[in-house]
């Protein structure tokens, strides 16, 4: 018998890929079970919602970070949550689940498979994030200083204030609004109605940042199912179609960057086509309140009435399950497209100190 490699054709148009189902756990201050259990909850939820069997999901890809628990190979246990028997086609990135979604999108473009399961998960509660995250920085000139993201965010905040681009009251307003929005989010960890005045009365923590300008410490997971082509319409009534997806990184050296802007977000937004239409909702990875100022500018979403709703979920300030936080932004936008409250949205994820790396996605529902 003659075996023959199937011939492959030139790609002309990208395949349409949509999010057809989403799931997220609550953002827990400290989840007593392990990370695989959080993932399992999301996967079982997705399968129940869609009625799909596990083996209908042809490619699985997860984002998580071993270092959160300090444990090499911690990610291996996570396959208990997604199921790997019979053997599955899966991969893993040591990045936020948003980048796992990015890789799944690429994989679906190849045309031989149509479905993907994407996971993001993490438990920040067992370790000390401010001591772990400095290990993301240059090992020779930054990490030994214990240079943590809170300190870097403080430096960025000062730069914004010095440049006249934001005030401390602006930061407090972002926190106040995020927490108030979170009251409507059943998964949120920090949700309350606190006035700007009360927030500004709090002491500095990493001046000009106060404790409430920082994200909480959270454990959680999120998952989505991607489907390519018409099949998406069989599974979801109103799929959230990925119309643009791009990510870019900036220099690691803070002295080489303009910390008052996010050049990589602007570039990714341009390549994702954010400006090609109106934005109804934007879920933006605002880990530190000043980042909302920077990211709005970069995405072209000015503050004020009548524009896009930014972080109706409360955003990461309301719950920050590291390595799932970016994917949760996709979950929140997609949900609003599913329920018809939004037609076109932006999901954004970031990685690294002071928004060093940024991923932007445009999601749309069909009329």
């Amino acid at each position, binding site marked *: 018998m003659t*075996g023959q490699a199937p011939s492959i054709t030139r790609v002309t148009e990208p395949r349409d890929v949509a999010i057809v189902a989403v799931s997220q756990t609550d953002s827990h201050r400290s989840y007593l079970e392990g990370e695989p259990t959080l993932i399992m909850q999301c996967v079982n939820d997705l399968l129940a919602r869609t009625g799909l069997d596990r083996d209908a999901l042809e490619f699985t890809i997860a984002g998580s970070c*071993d270092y959160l628990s300090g444990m090499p190979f911690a990610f291996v246990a996570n396959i208990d949550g997604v199921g790997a028997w019979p053997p*599955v086609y899966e991969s893993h990135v040591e990045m936020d689940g948003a980048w796992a979604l990015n890789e799944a999108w690429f994989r679906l473009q190849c045309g031989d498979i149509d479905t993907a399961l994407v996971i993001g998960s993490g438990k920040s509660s067992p370790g000390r994030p401010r001591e772990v995250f400095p290990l993301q920085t240059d090992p020779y000139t930054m990490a030994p200083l214990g240079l943590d993201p809170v300190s870097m965010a403080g430096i960025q905040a000062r730069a914004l204030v010095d440049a006249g681009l934001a005030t401390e009251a602006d930061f407090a307003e972002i926190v106040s609004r995020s927490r108030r929005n979170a009251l409507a989010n059943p998964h949120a960890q920090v949700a309350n109605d606190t006035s700007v005045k009360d927030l500004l009365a709090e002491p500095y923590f990493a001046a000009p940042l106060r404790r409430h300008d920082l994200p909480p410490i959270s454990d959680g997971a999120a998952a989505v199912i991607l489907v390519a082509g018409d099949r998406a319409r069989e599974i979801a009534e109103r799929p959230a179609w990925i119309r643009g997806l791009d990510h870019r990184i900036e220099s690691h050296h803070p002295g080489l960057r303009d910390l008052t802007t996010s050049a990589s977000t602007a570039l990714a937004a341009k390549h994702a086509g954010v400006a090609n239409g109106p934005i109804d909702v934007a879920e933006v990875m605002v880990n530190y309140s000043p980042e909302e100022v920077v990211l709005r500018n970069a995405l072209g979403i000015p503050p004020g009435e009548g524009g896009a709703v930014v972080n109706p979920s409360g955003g990461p300030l309301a719950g920050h399950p590291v390595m799932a936080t970016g994917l949760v932004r996709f979950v929140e936008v997609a949900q609003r497209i599913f329920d018809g409250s939004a037609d076109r949205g932006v999901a954004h994820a970031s990685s690294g100190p002071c928004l060093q790396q940024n991923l932007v996605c445009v999601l749309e529902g069909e009329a």
Partner: protein
Amino acid sequence: MARRSAVVGIGQTKYSKRAKDQSIDGLVREAAIKALDDAGMTFADIDAIVIGKAPDALEGVMMPELSLADALGAVGKPIHRVHTAGSVGASTAITGATMVESGRYDKVLVVCYEKQSDGNATWALSGGRSGGQGAGGTFAPWIRSYISRSGAPEHIGWKVAVKDRLNALRNPNAHLHLKDISIEKVKESPMLWDPLHFLESCPSSDGAAAVVIGSEEVALAAPTTPAWIIAHAKRTEFGSFPGRDTVRPQAGVDCSAALYKKAGITNPLTQIDCAELYVPFSWYEPMWLEGHGIMPEGEGWKLTDSGATELTGSFPVNPSGGVLSSNPIGASGMIRCLEAANQVRGTAGDYQVDGARVALGHAYGGAAQYFAMWIVSSDPDPVFS
């Protein structure tokens, strides 16, 4: 539909116990620049960068795509980081290939590395605790099961250990250049995890390996012969579950079956010219020959014993010297994929397998639960019969 993709540039460092006086930036740049030079490109030509490496605790640098972005010319571009334990090098190569096959990028730089001398691999593999059994301690009992199941004679492991190190003598990049390697020396070396002797085990190495993967147009215009990536596959299973066959993991069987189907290969032993298999402990050569459908179950050791897997044999395995001769953990899987590409391009120098046209690159990881493999060919559309 997927586009074609090909390896158009290859670069690697000389693997060693401790990299020469080099920062992590310097190590990865050395491999990246060599691959770019080989491809006739500079960093500016690259559309996207993918890096892969094993647990960050090996170097104590978390999410290194962040601190290496500038060094790898990634500023203003996408950079992505894959982590699938020991198989990561091959997984990363596959991720790079799919990025080109997707049609979105035309030129992707893929770099895998480990600078494990900065830390300690045994410490990291033991989760930072005392009494770690390491990889060898985990695999040794399964190896003993293979030996008892197959009836393989005890010298098979020693034979592989010698063969791979002799091959490595022809590979200037290999870590171990054991000029006086012999069956006697292997037998006499200390027992680490019964039945594995010290000289049947891989070294701990620093090193980086890089490829540039290009689209069909890029490949046809490249200065070197492209190594067409005609198929790739990955499979994963739980590391432990009731009734698991750790000796012949189903994920490995399924992965190779999917790979061969994609490539149109019906008889891997005759249709593949040579294989770079991830063999960190000698006995994994016969075990993977069986576990990946190249030899029938129970007979892998016979192929090894016959000399067929030697450099001049009918099915050379690890002509580069393999993982037994160089093991920067995060890079090892990439090195297998890269060395397979070297073979079909005819650029493997003194360890070139004559007439190699189709080669297999393979890696495994975790508790022999992660599998990633690819087939490269000098022909973009080979027909197998």
